[in-house]
C-alpha cells in the first residue's frame, strides 16, 4: 500500500489529519484546473476549496481502484463546469482583464523584452482560453497542465475517448483561430494612433 493509499484509507475512517495530507498533495493541480477554468484567482480558490469539501463528504463513495487524482479532478472539473453554466462567466474575464492593472515587465530580469513577451502571451492565452466551451476548456487544461492521456480525460469528464479526441481537436483549432485573430483586431484598433502617417 502506498503512502497516498494509506492516507485515503485513514481519511475514509474519519482521520481529518490524513485528509489534510491529501489536500496538501493535490492543492496545486486542483487549484490550477479551477483557475484555468474560471479565470479568476478568488473564484478558483473558492472552487478548489469546494472541491476538497465535496471530496471529503463523498470519500466513502470513492472507488479505491481508481486514481485519487483523477477522481478529485473530476469533481473539480464538474464543479467548475456547473459554475460556468450557472453564472456564464465567459465574458467577465476579457473585460475585467483589459480594465485591470497592467503588470510591467521586470527591468532587472536578464531578458526584460523576452519576459514581457512571455507575460503577454500568457495573458493572451488566459484570455482566449476563457472563450472556449467549458467542457472543451477542461479537456485542454487536463491535457496540457495535468499531462493527462485521452483515456484519463475521458474518465475525468465522463466522455468517450473519441469524444475527448474530437473536443481537443475542436478546442485547439478554436484557440489557434482566436490566437491568430486577436492581434489582428488589436492592430486594427490601434492603427489610427499607432502610425505617424495618420
Amino acid at each position, binding site marked *: 500500500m502506498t503512502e497516498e493509499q494509506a492516507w485515503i484509507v485513514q481519511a475514509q475512517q474519519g482521520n481529518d489529519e490524513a485528509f489534510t495530507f491529501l489536500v496538501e498533495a493535490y492543492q496545486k493541480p486542483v487549484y490550477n484546473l479551477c483557475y484555468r477554468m474560471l479565470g479568476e484567482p478568488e473564484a478558483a480558490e473558492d472552487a478548489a476549496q469546494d472541491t476538497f469539501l465535496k471530496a471529503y463528504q463523498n470519500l466513502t*463513495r470513492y472507488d479505491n481502484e481508481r486514481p485519487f487524482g483523477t477522481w478529485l479532478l473530476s469533481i473539480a472539473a464538474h464543479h467548475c463546469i456547473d459554475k460556468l453554466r450557472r453564472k456564464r462567466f465567459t465574458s467577465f474575464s476579457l473585460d475585467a482583464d483589459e480594465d485591470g492593472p497592467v503588470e510591467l515587465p521586470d527591468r532587472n530580469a536578464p531578458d526584460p523584452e523576452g519576459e514581457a513577451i512571455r507575460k503577454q502571451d500568457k495573458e493572451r492565452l488566459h484570455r482566449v482560453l476563457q472563450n472556449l466551451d467549458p467542457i472543451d476548456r477542461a479537456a485542454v487544461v487536463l491535457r*496540457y497542465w495535468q499531462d493527462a492521456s485521452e483515456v484519463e480525460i475521458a474518465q475525468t469528464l*465522463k466522455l468517450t475517448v473519441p469524444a475527448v479526441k474530437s473536443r481537443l481537436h475542436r478546442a485547439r483549432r478554436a484557440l489557434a483561430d482566436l490566437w491568430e485573430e486577436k492581434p489582428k483586431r488589436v492592430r486594427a484598433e490601434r492603427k489610427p494612433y499607432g502610425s505617424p502617417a495618420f
Partner: protein
Amino acid sequence: MDHRPFNEWLLENKPLTAEEKQSLHSHLQTCTSCSALTEVDLALKSVKLAAPAEGFGDRFKVRLAAQRKTARQRNTAGFILLTVSVLAAVTWLAWPYLGTSLRSPAGMLSSWMTSLFTLWTDLRALLHAGWVVVNVVPSLLWALFVFTAATSSLVWALSLVKLNKVVQGVQS
C-alpha cells in the same frame, strides 16, 4: 491554401518522418492558420501550473470546521422543528378527545378498550377468510403467483440499481 495533411499532423501530434517534418516546416512558413496552431501549442506547454496562495490547507481546515458547525446547527434546528411539528400535530388531533378524557377518564379508557377489542375481532375474521382463500385456490396457481411476484421484484430492483448507479465525481 490546402492545410489537410498538416492540420492533421499538428492536431494528432503523431511522430513524423524527416521528409514530413521538412514539408511541415515549409508549410508553416507561409500558413498563418497552421502556425497559430503550433504557437498555441507551444504557449500552452510553456505555462506553468498556477498555485494557490500560501496556507491553502489551513484555510481548508477552517472551511471544514465552519461547514461542520453549519451542518450541526441545521441538524439541531431540523430536530427542534420536527419535534415541535409532531407535538403540534398530536395536540391538534387529540384536542377534541382531551376535553372528554379530562372530564371522564374511565369512560375514555372503556371506549379505547372497546375499540381495541373490535380491532382484534376484525383481524381474526380477516385471517380466517385468508386461510379459506389459501385452501380453495390450487397450489399451482399459488406457485405461479409467487414466481410472477418474485420476477417482477427482481426486475424492479435491477432497474433501480441501474438507474441509481453512483457516477464517481459527478455532484450535481
